[in-house]
Structure formats: structure tokens, C-alpha cells
């Protein structure tokens, strides 16, 4: 009865509040935009209905996340309004039980939140069924899709979040504490989960995510097929069920604790942790006597007072100090200034290791862990803007919430003092935060034994760049709270502002001039320093600082002072407060906005063309629509390229004069040459060595057609001359062009070099984009069985380039360095290839103050171009290069060139890239520092071996399976080198690393390996399959097949190689008894599930041990839609028994490793071994069962009986 009344009153009270409706409206708009825009549908294969259950679930989860941030007021009010308003003496003394009071309030909050979350479903419905959507992407209306998403995702989310928000607010007696609960949950689901995910702890990430970011957004996105995404409903099963149960349990636990600890008692002013100590009430002594005579005359000294600017300055500083103190000592402040820096030490320590291999914790790489753009919504630092919103609200409302509003408002001085004081206070908090982060970073470096702290770099980046970013947002948050003047709505608006900043493209805004605080990012690398990135960064930040000044003026004008806060009253004040000095500030701000904005606009949109993503997509679509008809017309093939490149690093300019030799390899005469150019980077002076008329020139889409006066006869050649000018004209919307920089120049022929014929690579790929632009569907890549694709010529060119650069730099281009000389104060380098080479048409140019390490292997000249400071990796790299050349030339054929260049370029990536005769890598690669103890994985060695293997990659047909042909084979090669030079245990460590579900576990669906495309297929499954084959039939047989493949298809003449050729060669070498395995690995998606249930051993009379293994085996075949069928199993599987081994070898010394015939189902296997066994199991090396979990179920510890 009382419960019902409490519930009813609370619900009715809150339903009448504006915030409830605003939250509802915000969610509605968000769900609408997200459904319509669908920017989060990024996956390559995505093509599902707008209203598919998956899309609805996804939007529901994202909506929950937004609700979490904007909707905390509901639970907070319900829990703590009585205390906050001072009503609690009345309610607490009413004859109501705790259960009824808390229960009624909580239930009301939960019900209201549940109703508010319906806005997401409503928004989706509105987006799907209001006009403006093509009918073909709307699936049938399925109520179950909305209901399951709401019931299984939104509703439990609401319960969990409400419980935690409610409990925190009730505990602290402050409604706004609920917001901290939200930030906590947001952090849990968004950041902690992401962190775990990249640690490979997917399951834990799924479990600990309270909202569904992981188990819906990331998990299903990867695990569900397109068909499933369109049709399958989210069900309460598996991860979803465990997660929901776990969090419901946590919610109930939190509520139970709140119930038990809650009491109807006077609330002391002290916070919770002081509750134990007795509160001391102050008592002033009672005066000795009463009455008029007792009073001493007033003797307050007359002291001088100052007003004007000096007073303002002092007031500002005093308020700043107070703001800093109160923020820094609050719970959230302590979290920011104590907990986060401490956690940061751990995070940095953790991040300074990648894939189990330590990285050198250079200051630049540590700093990259400490910083993030404000708009990076996936970064762990999103917590900072969220806390800034909270702090800003607390500061703006500080006086009024303490009841001192009227007293402070009646103090002399303008409104600048409190506003600037609070801003400064918040700034001080951020400065302290940055200082602590610096300390955390240095501490982590010190712990890792790194001493080169580069304090100056910390100061520049954290206090110069990152602090600016945060300060701009802090000001925005303060201004929003001042202008809105309703605390909860202020939070809501500030959070929406942040969501807008972070997801502006979702709202159709892309240009950095239109997104508060946005701008191109800065970059820092050891090689290039900040390069040209600081200039544009600074211009944009200055522009936004001018806006910030204008916002500050607005806040000053509309600052609420006194009792009234009506809109009209505030406008009246604003008119009166618009004093000449304020007007000047506003004028300065507007002037700066216009001049800086104009200057930036001139740079981004006039000097450099600016196009939105959709405009670019439209041009690409038009390119396809207009010129695809020329795709198959005969065009000459490029056979030689001669270039003269002049790089001017300081001027950030490069001039390229080039000529292509084009050969008519077709059987017909060619009368027109088609040239694709890069819009906005048109080549200059395009000319042929025979008369040609430009009959079509489409600069926007980048297409030209030249009619030859005299057709090019079959077998005939012509020359195309062109000039390309790379220069930085001001800066672009995305920042400065960093291709030519003072140190660390790197650009490719993609920078405006003309290409011959229609370029398929320019076509839009995703079905969504293609549909939007009215293009017919196209497969991502042609079918494996498309014979036409195989009949192309491999692109092979004779390349010759003279590259000039500054005298103190070294320039690098593809080919062998023939000659270098100095002329006119510049250094020139002549590179050329040994005849036609290359498996692709991409090539790059480098120029930097390189040091060169020269080495030889037989007749191959090896040159390693590296930053003079980066030397630690050189010997390891050369060891791997030599070992690779040794093994590959012996087993797969000769190295096709007399040279090899390894080039470092600026940038943090840890990976490498291989081209013909050249391996390039970012600076990150040099920071791998594997432990040299022989027991740890030497991943960089394997990576180099992999890139070296690419030198043997065949000219491929551009069809399905091409990535398998390229990457899988290269990894198989690398595995052999690792085994050859480091031994089998190191190979097992490499395989174990590759089996880790990183970042996502294998997908049991899709195409078989022969048609494999995705990274898992090409980088994981392919190498595993080849390795397993090698183990089953001997690696010599596999190597033989691969060598034959190189011999037959190495020339580049059609037909080009496909996985079918690989398969054919493998079939030749595979004995009939293992044909089934080859089939299982390549033709279908087979999964072996092998498990050892029990391993027991008994000593026999002869001193040997008899080991009995209970094993279980199962084999399933998954089709492309993910439907699994069990296949009967009766085949060879390894059984292994291991004795105690040396340290570092996880399995131990093999006592018995042999193939046994294994059937489907349970069975017992008995083997006898000479010594006492420790571990035993089925498929111990994971040749078939690749899913390696933390507790490897293939292997069991042997229980021994003497």
C-alpha cells in the first residue's frame, strides 16, 4: 500500500520533470540517426536489412550507452532527492519501512528508465518507416526483433545501471553521484572490455561488459554471417545469457547492500569514510552575561579595499584555488588524480609488450599511451571528458548547492571572476592530472629499466598539446552548465555536445571547422619529430580558442546572479552587462573567429580542395558509371618506368619527371590511350612520343582519353612523359601533407602519378555504398573460378629512377643503387632494377638522414637504411634475412634479384611491408626487444622471415584465395626458417602465439580456405593447414609442391597462379591415405574437436609405464552460412606422452609422439613409455584442433600410480 504510493508519487513526480522527456528525445533522435546513417556498419561484408534483428540489437546497445551517460538523473533523483532538498527529516520519520521506501523509489526509477529506453526502439521504427528509405533495404516487420533487443539487452541494462546509480546516489546522499555510477559502467563496458579484448581475453571482456558493447557489437559483428545478421534473433543463450545473469546478480547484490546499509537516520555532513569517527560539533562558549551591556562595541578595523582589475584578478585566483581544492579532494577528483595515474602505470607496463614480446618503452611510445584526441570515443581517455562534464557541473553549482548563492551573488565584482576562476580551477586540476600522468609514464619507464626520459617531450605533448584539447572542452562544459542553468539538463546537453564532437559524421558534419575543438591531429615520431603537423593543429586550436573566448563572453553575459533565472531576465542582464570591455572581448573573439576561420578555410578549401567522404564516394561512383565500359578495351601494358625525382625536404616539395614505356601486348591495334589521374593532384605536361589528341579530360573524376593519330600496332611501344609536382600548399582539412617532410620523406606513385586504363581499385566496394549510388552489386573480389582473371599479364616493369635530395640525406627508391654523386649541393642516387620486376605497380620513394648498414649474402647486396639512432634491431634483422635466403633458395628456388633494401620510415607501426627487393617498416618495428633467453618468442625474427618469403610470392590472379596464396605461403615459409634456425620449441611458441584468438576467435563459417579472403584465413588458417600437412606427410613433400608452384608460375605470364594451382601441386605430393586431410583442410571448413578427459599411468614390471588415455574426438564441417554438420571420423591423430622437460619447453621431453587411428566419440588409448610421464594427450601440437585456450584441453596431467 505505502509501497504503491511511494512508487506512484515518485513516478508521477519524475514524469513531470523536463529531463525525463529530454533524455527520451535525445535517445529517439540518436536511434533515428544511427539507424538511418548506419556509420557503425563498417564490416566489409555488411549487407543486411535496415531493420534486421542485428541492426536493431546494435542500435539498442549503442542507445543504452548513450542513455547511461545522459540518463543518470532519474535514478539519482529517486535515491537522493530527499537528502538533497533537506526533506529527509520528514520522509524518514514517516511510518514507512525501508523496503517500501527504497523499493518504491528504485522501482519508480527503473520503470521510468525502462520507459525512456523505449525511445530507442521508437527511434528505430521511426527511422525505418518514415519516408526517405528505399523499400528494398527494409526487411519484414518482426516485433520479436524489437522485443528481444529491448527485453534481453535494454531492460537488463536499465536494471543494472539503475541499481548502481541508485545505490551510489543513496550512499553518498547526492543525486549527481549517480552520474559517477554511469561513468564507471561506461568505463567498464567500453574501455576495460576493450583492453581485455586486445589482451586476447575475449571471454572475460564479454562477461565483464555490463552493456553489451562486446558481446553484441563486437562479438556478433564478427561471428554472424550476413544471412544471420539479417535474420537471426538475439537469443538468451551462451555469452549473452551468462553475461545477463552475472550482471543481474551484481545488480541485485548492490541493491541488497544498499538496503542493508541504508538507515532512516540524520545524515551527517561528513562523507562515508569518516562515518566511523565521531563527529565533533563545534560549540562556542556562552557569553558571561547577557543584555546590551554585554556587547563589546564594534571594533572592526577599517581596512583598505581595492576594486577594479586588481580585485577581479584576486577574486579569480581565490575562486580558482577553491575550485581546484574542492574538485581535487572530491571522490571523482581523487579517481582522476590518484586512481587513474596509478592504473596508467599498469597500463603502460602492459602496453610496452606486444604479442608477448617486450617493446622498448621510448618516451614517444609511452606518451602515445597517455594521450588521445578528445573525440576518440574508443580510447580509454574518454573518461576525461566525461569527468570534466561532471566537474564543470559541480563547480557551476557549488555556491548554490551549498546555499551560499545569494551571499556570493551579492559580492562586488563582475561575473568574469567566478567564471574564469572556475575555469582556472578546472584547468589546475587538468594540469595536476597531466603532471601525474607524466610521473606515471616516467615511473613505468623506470620500472622497465629505461632511462632516457625526454622530459621536454612530455612537457610539450602533455602540457602543450593534450592539455589544450582538454581545456577547450572544459570551457565548453562550463559554458553549457552556465547557459543551461539546470544541473541535469546541463549534464545532458554537455554529454550530447561530446557525443556530437565524437560522432560528428553521424550527424552529417565532417569539416573540422564545424566541430568544436576539432582539428587535424598532431603526430610525433623519433625520425620526423612533429613534422609539419603542429602548424595546422595550432591554427585550428587558435580558431577554437577564439570560439571559446566568445563562449566565455556568452557565459559572462548570461551568468545567473541572484534569484531569477528566467530567459527574459537573463537577456535583460546581458544587455546591461554588455559593457565596452565585454563588447571588446566579443569583438576580438568574433574578429579572430573570422580571420582565423577565413585563413583556415582558405587553406583547406581554396588552396587545397575539400570534399566530404560522401562527395568523394560520389565521384568514385561516377568514375565507375562513366568509364567502366572501357575496362576491357585493349590498352598497352607498362614495361618500363624512368623517373627523375627531385626531393626538397625543407621546402616540403618534390618534382618528378617520368616516362612510361607502354607496350601493346594485345592482338589488335590500339588507337586511344586511357589515363586515370588522381583528382586534385593532376599530373602536369602529359605527353606521348607520337601525336595524340586529348579527346576527354575529366579532372573531377580523374580520367583522360588520348586519341593516337597513328594507332599502336600489336607489339609496338610508345612512351608517355609526365610531370608530377608534390608540394604543400598550406594545409588540408585533415592536416598538413606529410609526404615530403624535413626528415623522413615517404611518398608513393599514388601521389598523383598517372595510371593506364580504367582502375578497378577506385570502385566502391560495400554493398551499402554501391546501392546508395545506384551501382549494381559486385563481389568484393572475382570468383576463384573466374578464368578470365587468370589470363592477365602480371605487372612487371623495368624501373629506373634518379632521386636527388639534400646533401645530408639519403634517398631510396626501388632497385639496386647504381651510383651516387653530388651536384649543385645536392646528392643524387641512381636506382634501377635488374630487368622487369615487381609483382605490383606500387613503389615508393624515401629520403631521410639515414645511416646505411651494408651486408652481403652470396651475390646479393643488402642495404639497411635506418635512422642513425635505431641500431639495436639491425643484427637480428640481418640474421633473419640471411637465414631466410639460405632456406628459401635451397628449398623454393633462387632469389630473383641481386639486391635487397630494408628501409625505415617514420611512424609507429610495428609491422613490415614487403615489395619486390624491398622491405619497409615503420619506426615501431625497431622497438621490438625480444628476450634473448632462448625461451621466449622471437617474433621480429619470424616477421622478417615472413617478409623475406614474400620475395618468392608469385604473380597472382586477383581472385578469391589470393591473400591465402600470398600470406599463408609466406607464413609457412617463415615457420620453416624459424624451425631451421631456432629449433622446434621456438616454432611451437610461434604457433602458439598465432593460435591465440587475437583479436577475435576463429569464425566457424564462410568460405573454405581455397577461397579464403579475410585475415584469419590468410594469416592463420592457411599457415596452420600447410604446417599440419607438413607434419602429416613430411615437410619435404610440401616444400616440393611449393617449389614446383614457383617454377611453373614465377614468370608472370598468364595464366596467373591461384589457390587451385597450389592445391593441384599439393595433391600431387599427397599420398592417397592423406587425401582426405587435404580435402578437409582446403576444400571445406573442417573443425576438429579433440579432448583428453583423463590420463593415467601405471608402472609395469619392466620399469616402463603404461599410459591410459580417455580421449574424445569430433569432427564438424561448417558451410558458408555457419551451419555445422558432424562428419564421421576415423583418421590419424597424434597421441603424445611427455616426460619432464627443460625449462622453457612447455610440453617437456617427448616420450611417445605417434599417429593413432582415432574414431568419433570416446575411446581409450594405451601406450607404453620408458620413463615416468608428466603430460599426455591427443593432438598435443594442435595440428588439427587449433583452438588453443588457456587451459589446453588436448593435454592432461598424467595421474601416475607406482
Amino acid at each position: 500500500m505505502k509501497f504503491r504510493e511511494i512508487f506512484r508519487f515518485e513516478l508521477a513526480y519524475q514524469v513531470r520533470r523536463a529531463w525525463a522527456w529530454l533524455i527520451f528525445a535525445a535517445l529517439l533522435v540518436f536511434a533515428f540517426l544511427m539507424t538511418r546513417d548506419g556509420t557503425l556498419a563498417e564490416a566489409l561484408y555488411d549487407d543486411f536489412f535496415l531493420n534486421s534483428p542485428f541492426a536493431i540489437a546494435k542500435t539498442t546497445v549503442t542507445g543504452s550507452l548513450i542513455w547511461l551517460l545522459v540518463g543518470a538523473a532519474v535514478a539519482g533523483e529517486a535515491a537522493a532527492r530527499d537528502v538533497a532538498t533537506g526533506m529527509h527529516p520528514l520522509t524518514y520519520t514517516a511510518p514507512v519501512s525501508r523496503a517500501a521506501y527504497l523499493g518504491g523509489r528504485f522501482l519508480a526509477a527503473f520503470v521510468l528508465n525502462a520507459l525512456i529506453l523505449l525511445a530507442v526502439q521508437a527511434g528505430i521504427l521511426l527511422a525505418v518507416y518514415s519516408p526517405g528509405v528505399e523499400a528494398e533495404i527494409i526487411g519484414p516487420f518482426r516485433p520479436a526483433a524489437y522485443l528481444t533487443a529491448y527485453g534481453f539487452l535494454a531492460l537488463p541494462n536499465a536494471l543494472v545501471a539503475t541499481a548502481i546509480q541508485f545505490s551510489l546516489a543513496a550512499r553518498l546522499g547526492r543525486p549527481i553521484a549517480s552520474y559517477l555510477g554511469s561513468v564507471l559502467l561506461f568505463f567498464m563496458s567500453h574501455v576495460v572490455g576493450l583492453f581485455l579484448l586486445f589482451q586476447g581475453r575475449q571471454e572475460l571482456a564479454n562477461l565483464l561488459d555490463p552493456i553489451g558493447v562486446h558481446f553484441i557489437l563486437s562479438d556478433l559483428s564478427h561471428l554472424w554471417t550476413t544471412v544471420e545478421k539479417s535474420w537471426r534473433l538475439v537469443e538468451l543463450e551462451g555469452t549473452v545469457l551468462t553475461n545477463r545473469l552475472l550482471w543481474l546478480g551484481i545488480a541485485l547484490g548492490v541493491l541488497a547492500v544498499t538496503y542493508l546499509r541504508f538507515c532512516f537516520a540524520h545524515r551527517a555532513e561528513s562523507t562515508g569514510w569518516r562515518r566511523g569517527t565521531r563527529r565533533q560539533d563545534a560549540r562556542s562558549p556562552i557569553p558571561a552575561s547577557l543584555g546590551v551591556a554585554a556587547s563589546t562595541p564594534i571594533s572592526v578595523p577599517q581596512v583598505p579595499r581595492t576594486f577594479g582589475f586588481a580585485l577581479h584578478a584576486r577574486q579569480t585566483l581565490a575562486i580558482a584555488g577553491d575550485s581546484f581544492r574542492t574538485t581535487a579532494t572530491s571522490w571523482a577528483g581523487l579517481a582522476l588524480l590518484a586512481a587513474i595515474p596509478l592504473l596508467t602505470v599498469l597500463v603502460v607496463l602492459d602496453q610496452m609488450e606486444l604479442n608477448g614480446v617486450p617493446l622498448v618503452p621510448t618516451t614517444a611510445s609511452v606518451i602515445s599511451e597517455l594521450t588521445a584526441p578528445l573525440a576518440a570515443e574508443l580510447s580509454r581517455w574518454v573518461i576525461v571528458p566525461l569527468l570534466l562534464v561532471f566537474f564543470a557541473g559541480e563547480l557551476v553549482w557549488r555556491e548554490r548547492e551549498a546555499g551560499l548563492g545569494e551571499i556570493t551573488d551579492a559580492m562586488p565584482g563582475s561575473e568574469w571572476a567566478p567564471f574564469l576562476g572556475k575555469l582556472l580551477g578546472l584547468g589546475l586540476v587538468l594540469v595536476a592530472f597531466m603532471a601525474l600522468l607524466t610521473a606515471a609514464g616516467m615511473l613505468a619507464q623506470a620500472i622497465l629499466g629505461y632511462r632516457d626520459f625526454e622530459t621536454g617531450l612530455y612537457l610539450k605533448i602533455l602540457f602543450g598539446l593534450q592539455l589544450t584539447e582538454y581545456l577547450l572542452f572544459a570551457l565548453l562544459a562550463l559554458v553549457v552548465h552556465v547557459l543551461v542553468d539546470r544541473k541535469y539538463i546541463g549534464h545532458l546537453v554537455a554529454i550530447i555536445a561530446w557525443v556530437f564532437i565524437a560522432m560528428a559524421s553521424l550527424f552529417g558534419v565532417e569539416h573540422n571547422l564545424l566541430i568544436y575543438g576539432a582539428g587535424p591531429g598532431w603526430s610525433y615520431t623519433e625520425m620526423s619529430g612533429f613534422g609539419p603537423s603542429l602548424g595546422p593543429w595550432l591554427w585550428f586550436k587558435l580558431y577554437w580558442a577564439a570560439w571559446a573566448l566568445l563562449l566565455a563572453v556568452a557565459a559572462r553575459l548570461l551568468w545567473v546572479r541572484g534569484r531569477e533565472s528566467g530567459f527574459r531576465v537573463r537577456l535583460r542582464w546581458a544587455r546591461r552587462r554588455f559593457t565596452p570591455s565585454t563588447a571588446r572581448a566579443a569583438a576580438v573573439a568574433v574578429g579572430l573567429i573570422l580571420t582565423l576561420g577565413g585563413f583556415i578555410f582558405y587553406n583547406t578549401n581554396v588552396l587545397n580542395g575539400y570534399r566530404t567522404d560522401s562527395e568523394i564516394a560520389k565521384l568514385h561512383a561516377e568514375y565507375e558509371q562513366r568509364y567502366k565500359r572501357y575496362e576491357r578495351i585493349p590498352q598497352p601494358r607498362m614495361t618500363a618506368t624512368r623517373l627523375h625525382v627531385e626531393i626538397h625536404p625543407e621546402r616540403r616539395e618534390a618534382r618528378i619527371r617520368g616516362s612510361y614505356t607502354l607496350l601493346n601486348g594485345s592482338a589488335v591495334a590500339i588507337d586511344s590511350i586511357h589515363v586515370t589521374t588522381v583528382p586534385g593532384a593532376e599530373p602536369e605536361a602529359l605527353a606521348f612520343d607520337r601525336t595524340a589528341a586529348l579527346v576527354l579530360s575529366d579532372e573531377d573524376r580523374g580520367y583522360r582519353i588520348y586519341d593516337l593519330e597513328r594507332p599502336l600496332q600489336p607489339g609496338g611501344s610508345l612512351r608517355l612523359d609526365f610531370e608530377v609536382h608534390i608540394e604543400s600548399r598550406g594545409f588540408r582539412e585533415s592536416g598538413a601533407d606529410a609526404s615530403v617532410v624535413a626528415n623522413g620523406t615517404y611518398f608513393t606513385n599514388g601521389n598523383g602519378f598517372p595510371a593506364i586504363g580504367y582502375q578497378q581499385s577506385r570502385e566502391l566496394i560495400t554493398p551499402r555504398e554501391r546501392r546508395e549510388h545506384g551501382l549494381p552489386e559486385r563481389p568484393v573480389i572475382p570468383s576463384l573460378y573466374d578464368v578470365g582473371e587468370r589470363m592477365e599479364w602480371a605487372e612487371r616493369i623495368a624501373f629506373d629512377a634518379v632521386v636527388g635530395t639534400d646533401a645530408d640525406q639519403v634517398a631510396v627508391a626501388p632497385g639496386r643503387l647504381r651510383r651516387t654523386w653530388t651536384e649543385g649541393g645536392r646528392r643524387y642516387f641512381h636506382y634501377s632494377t635488374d630487368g622487369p620486376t615487381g609483382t605490383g605497380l606500387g613503389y615508393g620513394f624515401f629520403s631521410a638522414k639515414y645511416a646505411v648498414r651494408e651486408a652481403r649474402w652470396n651475390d646479393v647486396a643488402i642495404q639497411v637504411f635506418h635512422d642513425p639512432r635505431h641500431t639495436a634491431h639491425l643484427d637480428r634483422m640481418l640474421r633473419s634475412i640471411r637465414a631466410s635466403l639460405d632456406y628459401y633458395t635451397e628449398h623454393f628456388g633462387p632469389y630473383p634479384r641481386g639486391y635487397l633494401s630494408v628501409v625505415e620510415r617514420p611512424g609507429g607501426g610495428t609491422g613490415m611491408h614487403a615489395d619486390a627487393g624491398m622491405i619497409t617498416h615503420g619506426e615501431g618495428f625497431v622497438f621490438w626487444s625480444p628476450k634473448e633467453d632462448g625461451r621466449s618468442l622471437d617474433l621480429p625474427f619470424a616477421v622478417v622471415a615472413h617478409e623475406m618469403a614474400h620475395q618468392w610470392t608469385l604473380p597472382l590472379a586477383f581472385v578469391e584465395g589470393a591473400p591465402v596464396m600470398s600470406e599463408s605461403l609466406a607464413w609457412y615459409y617463415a615457420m620453416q626458417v624459424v624451425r631451421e634456425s631456432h629449433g622446434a620449441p621456438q616454432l611451437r611458441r610461434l604457433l602458439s602465439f598465432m593460435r591465440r584468438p587475437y583479436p577475435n576467435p576463429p569464425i566457424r563459417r564462410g568460405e573454405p580456405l581455397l577461397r579464403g579472403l579475410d585475415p584469419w584465413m590468410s594469416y592463420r588458417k592457411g599457415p596452420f593447414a600447410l604446417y599440419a600437412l607438413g607434419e602429416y606427410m613430411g615437410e619435404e613433400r610440401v616444400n616440393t609442391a611449393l617449389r614446383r608452384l614457383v617454377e611453373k608460375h614465377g614468370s608472370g605470364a598468364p595464366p596467373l597462379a591461384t589457390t587451385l594451382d597450389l592445391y593441384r601441386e599439393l595433391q600431387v605430393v599427397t599420398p592417397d591415405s592423406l587425401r582426405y586431410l587435404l580435402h578437409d583442410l582446403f576444400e571445406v571448413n573442417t573443425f576438429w574437436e579433440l579432448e583428453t578427459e583423463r590420463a593415467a599411468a601405471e608402472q609395469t614390471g619392466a620399469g616402463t609405464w603404461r599410459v591410459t588415455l580417455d580421449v574424445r574426438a569430433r569432427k564438424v564441417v561448417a558451410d558458408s552460412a555457419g551451419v555445422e554438420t558432424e562428419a564421421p571420423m576415423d583418421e590419424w591423430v597424434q597421441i603424445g606422452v611427455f616426460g619432464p622437460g627443460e625449462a622453457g619447453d612447455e610440453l617437456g621431453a617427448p616420450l611417445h609422439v605417434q599417429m593413432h587411428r582415432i574414431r568419433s566419440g570416446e575411446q581409450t588409448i594405451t601406450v607404453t613409455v620408458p620413463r615416468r610421464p608428466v603430460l599426455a594427450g591427443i593432438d598435443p601440437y594442435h595440428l588439427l584442433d587449433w583452438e588453443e585456450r588457456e587451459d589446453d584441453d588436448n593435454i592432461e596431467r598424467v595421474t601416475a600410480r607406482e
Partner: protein
Amino acid sequence: MHLSIRNISKTYPNGVRALDDVSLTIPAGMYGLLGPNGAGKSTLMRMIATLQEPDAGSIRLGELDVLRQKDEVRKTLGYLPQEFGVYPKVSAEELLGHFALLKGIATRRARREVVEALLRQVNLWEVRRQKLGGYSGGMKQRFGVAVALLGSPRLLIVDEPTAGLDPAERVRFLNLLSELGENSVVILSTHIVEDVSELCTRMAIIDRGEILLEAEPLGAIEEMRGRIWRSVIEKGALAELEREHAVISTKLLGGRTVVHVFSDTAPVPGFEPAEPDLEDVYFSTMAGHVGRRRAQPELQVAP
């Protein structure tokens, strides 16, 4: 130096007419603003304290236009609102020092002197280091007085200051105020008649947004002489008495009812002339026997 309020009106958005064409002239000294709860006292006080603006009318402090030159007024203003809070985790000394700075006392030494003097004045010196969160209601009130007295204000506005004070504190507080009133404009709003009668040289009675009487307390009491009659009656007889006489107040005294009646002449036997006090002035004014309400009694139908 005096405060002149001219034709101030204020209607709240919900239709409540808080002030209706109020005009007052307030000289230096203690000025009492007396009226029942909800009479519009606080609204008027806030307007004088620059925190609220009238719909119409003007307020001038000497040469200053209070509504336009707010910052000038604030430099010389001390304001103790009816209700206020404190930062619980800050000590009295610290917070008073903070406000001293906000009021323009720039040097640290001057601030320390002023803070000490004021805290001694309001008898909080002994507890200056304690957190304000532990203060009793009366101590907070005295702290508020100290804040209001910062910077030797020439205009001091205290809104219902004695409401939360115990008798001893109240006496102390009123003493404090009376000394201030010697060279400043001190406006004291209260619904407690004794506050005014003990302190104020001038007063106004306000009800439902209207000034009913503006007078000197002693003069007003003198005017009542011979017009207030007192009788002790049984409770049951009250209703009949009210029908026939202008009863202005009733009180219980030892279980019997003491009735004050306003009459220019002796009413009936059983009544004796009473020595008038300010309470009689107040009730007579509220009842419309004296002051502005007398002229239009028929308009006083309750809204």
C-alpha cells in the same frame, strides 16, 4: 545617505503579486520591515540587495541607482539572506577570509585583522578552526552576520536574522546591529515584533505586497495610547465579542483569554485601558484600524 524606494511592483510568473507600488524612504539607522510570512519582505530585501529586479519602479541608495549600478552598490553592501548554507568542509576562518577577498580586502594582513575582529565580534573566534559542517544553526547564523559585516557596509540588509537564534544569541545579535546602525542604512526584516520595537528607529509594516504603515515605532505606539482596551474573558465569549468589537489580538494567559480591542472610546464595562505596545500597532494595522488599509476596508476581501 538614505535609501529611497519608489513605486516598486513585482509580479511573479505564477501570478502572485509580491509587491504592489511600494514606496519607502529609509534613512540611516535601523529600519524594521515588519510583516507576516509571505508579505513580500524577502522580495523587497533581495531587490535592495541587487539580486532581483522589479517590474517597475526605482531604488536609489544616495546617488546610486541600485538597479543599474549594481556593482557599485555591492561594494558597500552587506547581505544576510533569510536562508543560506555553508561549505561544510571548510573552517569559518577560511571561508570568511575567502569572502573578505571577494569583497575586495586585498592584503593578507588586512584580511587577517578583519577576520579576527569579526569572528571575535560574533563570538566564533574560539571555534574558527572548526569545519562549518559541525556548526549549530545559531553559529551559522552568526557566521552569516560576520560575512554581512565584511567591508564595513553602508547598506546592510538582514532578512529574518533572529529566526534561528536562542534568546541569548538574539540579544547579542541585536546589540551588534544597533551599533552598526549608527552610520549605515540597516534594514531588518522580521515577523517578530520585539525585534523592531527594541532596535529600530523607523519601521514599515508590509502585507501582501503593500506598505500598510510607515512610522517611527515610538510615535506609532504613542498614537495608540487610549485606543487599546484589554479584557480577560472566557474562551466561549470570544465569538460574541468579536461580532461587536474590533478585536485586534487574543492571547492565552493562564488558561484564560486576554483580548485586545481597538476603540477610540471605552467599549463596555469589563474592559480596561491597556498600555499599548508595538504589537498592538502591528495588529491594528493588519486589521485595518490604522494605516493605509483603513481607507479601503472593503477591498480587503481575501483573494
